[in-house]
């Protein structure tokens, strides 16, 4: 039931243990995102993640609360990194505990799809000798919209 914004690596095993606690719910789903080694066909050497700390905290907390209402979660957690990252570093981790697998899996997908477009983080890629800000992709907007206007 919490959010962590952190520069350090995500300890996935510790996060998972903390999420399930002493009594794992019937259904536990998690998602871990890693830094891809390529961007539009070019090798990526590093990634810088800028964020707006106060707003990111609020948006992600609100997102978790919405996921609880929508998917009847008993527990959830969102961890997002900022700062300098290397290829194959973990960048984001979400976890959801529910009564059934459908809700737990959907909650992770909902949290990921929503945070991609709504949480104030910006990626800057180092590709070869150059650097570029990552542009929002249409697929991310599409995936976010799928969750709007659906039956609760």
């Amino acid at each position, binding site marked *: 039931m919490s959010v962590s914004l952190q520069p350090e690596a995500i300890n996935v095993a510790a996060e998972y243990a903390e999420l399930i606690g002493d009594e794992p719910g019937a259904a536990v789903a998690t998602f871990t995102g890693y830094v891809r080694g390529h961007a539009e066909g070019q090798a990526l050497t590093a990634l810088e993640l800028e964020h*707006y700390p106060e707003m*990111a905290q609020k948006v992600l907390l609100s997102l978790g609360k919405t996921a609880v209402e929508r998917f009847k979660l008993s527990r959830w957690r969102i961890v997002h990194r900022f700062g300098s990252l290397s290829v194959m570093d973990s960048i984001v981790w979400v976890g959801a505990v529910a009564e059934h697998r459908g809700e737990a899996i959907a909650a992770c997908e909902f949290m990921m799809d929503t945070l*991609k477009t*709504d*949480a*104030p*983080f*910006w990626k800057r890629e180092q590709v070869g000798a150059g650097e570029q800000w990552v542009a*929002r992709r249409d697929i991310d907007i599409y995936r976010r919209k799928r969750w709007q206007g659906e039956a609760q």
Partner: protein
Amino acid sequence: MNITIKLFAALREALGESELKFELSEVSSDAAPADVAAVKAALANRGADWREALYQPNLVHALNHKVVFTDAVVSEGDELAFFPPMTGG
């Protein structure tokens, strides 16, 4: 009657500033409170680089950490942020 302006990512880089104070009375009166559009217009007067950055397509406006449209009313002590579409996750 100050508000805080924050700029992030490509906007921060293009304008060379991440945070500045803005005197709200420049664009508002008791009879006509300022909205985000008015603050933006005043900031755009700082130069072509500001104008270009603040009127780029898909610019996001956040008032006190919430995404808003440009008709949102701005009050003393508010924090108004401008940034490009978010690309986290």
